[in-house]
């Protein structure tokens, strides 16, 4: 029976809650909460992607596009139209859901490589729009002056405040997703992954479930994009290009896509690698990613989240 134990989740989020306090007392990691904001933003996307890829078995190369749609919806609607940021966030999620429905309905009928190509093409189109619609998006120069977030007069104006906001969203998304996985929906997704033939013989409407999960992933990515925009107060297209979509895939491949924890581990690791530990590789960063991905897929097909299982296996023998 698939059961995701509660204890590690409790411990993990307890650490998340205490972390800013710890970081304050250790100068070497004093700036980590800032990185963790980005890690949390990525976590939102990878959680959705993990459900789509790891559980439903569908590949997507366009998560960065939904990430961008969220960010630009927030940016454009607040800066150009002066709307309430929270409302913009919701509108962005609504637009992403609608776009995911329109793109997903035909694409998810495709299999394997074709689905990858279709989502890839869609991602590139969205990226081009961000670049070309200069009047709305500011084009390649990006968009400045996106306001910060506040709630009932409380301003999320420091790193730590924003940190807690982002991680509250991650916590909610994580719990929501776990509830899905351990339910009728989750079973249907795993059934689809295992045998589409048998799943449909059990009455599972395959395309419907694929689309629902695709939309869910898009909505989470969009939320992540809005949070990103309001944190940095600046966005430009390169944050949402194809490489980011690939990086997101690397995250869940590295963390392990068949377990929801893999999404968290991967998002953390790649964030810290790219912003902190691999900084000095500069242009060669991508080669290092390639190397890491190669090693993981060869030696840890279930990703880093699969390690406890391997160790358990050793003890059993």
């Amino acid at each position, binding site marked *: 029976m698939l059961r995701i134990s509660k204890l590690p989740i409790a411990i993990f989020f307890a650490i998340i809650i205490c972390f800013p306090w710890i970081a304050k007392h250790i100068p070497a990691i004093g700036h980590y909460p800032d990185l963790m904001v980005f890690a949390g933003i990525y976590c939102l996307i990878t959680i959705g992607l993990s459900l789509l890829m790891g559980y439903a078995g569908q590949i997507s190369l366009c998560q960065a596009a939904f990430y961008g749609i969220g960010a630009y919806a927030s940016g454009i609607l607040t800066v150009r139209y002066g709307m309430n940021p929270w409302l913009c966030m919701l509108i962005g999620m609504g637009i992403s859901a609608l776009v995911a429905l329109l793109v997903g309905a035909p694409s998810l009928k495709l299999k394997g490589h074709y689905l990858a190509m279709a989502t890839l093409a869609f991602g590139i189109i969205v990226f081009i729009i961000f670049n070309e619609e200069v009047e709305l998006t500011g084009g390649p120069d990006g968009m400045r002056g996106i306001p910060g977030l506040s709630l009932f007069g409380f301003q999320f104006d420091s790193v730590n405040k924003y940190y807690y906001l982002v991680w509250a969203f991650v916590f909610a998304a994580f719990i929501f997703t776990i509830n899905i996985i351990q339910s009728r929906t989750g*079973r249907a997704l795993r059934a689809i992954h*295992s045998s589409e033939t048998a799943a449909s013989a*059990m009455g599972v409407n395959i395309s419907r479930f694929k689309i629902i999960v695709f939309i869910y992933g898009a909505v989470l990515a969009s939320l992540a994009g809005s949070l990103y925009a309001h944190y940095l107060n600046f966005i430009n297209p390169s944050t949402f290009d194809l490489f980011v979509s690939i990086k997101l895939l690397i995250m869940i491949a590295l963390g392990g896509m068949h377990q929801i924890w893999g999404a968290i581990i991967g998002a953390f690791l790649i964030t810290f690698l790219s912003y902190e530990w691999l900084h000095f590789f500069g242009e060669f960063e991508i080669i290092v990613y390639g190397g890491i991905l190669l090693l993981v897929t060869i030696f840890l097909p279930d990703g880093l989240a699969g390690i406890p299982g391997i160790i358990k296996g050793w003890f059993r023998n």
Partner: protein
Amino acid sequence: MVQELKFQVRESLEKNILEVEQVAMAFGGLMALINQNFRVKKGIIKAIIGPNGAGKTTLFNVITGFFPPTEGTIRFKGQAIEHLKAHDIASRGLSRTFQTVELFDNMTVLENVMVGCHTRIRSSFLATGFKLPQVKRKENKIKEKAMDILEFINLKDKFNEPADSLPLGEQKLLEIGRGLATQPDLLCLDEPVAGLNETETQVASSLIRLIREKGITVLLVEHDMKVVMDLSDEIMVLNYGEKIAEGPPEQVQNDPKVIEAYLGGED
């Protein structure tokens, strides 16, 4: 006249759970099914036999919505279903098993049966994500129901084992159990005892009989003639996609065309 016709329609509805009319299935140039016409009476076990490649599995695939037929009508419980998708047909109460076992290998025995309950107990994506109280209640109900089925097919002890760890005989039973979980009115079994030993075959046979006793109609494709003769109320014989005989077992057994088809198929 009209009254008479109405009466006939109603009577056939009450008597026949499945009506197949002029169904044909072509794969490119190959006619896998030719002008199929037959009915399945409610509550019986009807066997479909025939040499390898006769079109038995194709017939199941057409009935259960995996291949839309090239021609013809299929009525299940009086309603045309030939244009429906497999999942739709399943949710209307027509379930099946597969010739080569198609269990969900990534799940436990219990979970496999729980997937079978998919269309009977539903909750929405949002309700599930927010874990509303009724979702938990429904989930428990699904588990209970699945456990009852495992008890029925005698696999209760193994509920928590991975489905692919079971021996073939039990995997076949589990597939039947998973089909039963969809609460079918008609269950199509594609070679349920193929590859099983003597004891396993007996277990499966008596299970199929029990299923009929529950009021579920069974369509049975099987090569094991002893099982077929033992279980079926009616037999239909296919050869090269055509029906060559249909009737009670004794009659079909002695039909020269049937004997010819089977002997002819061997050289």
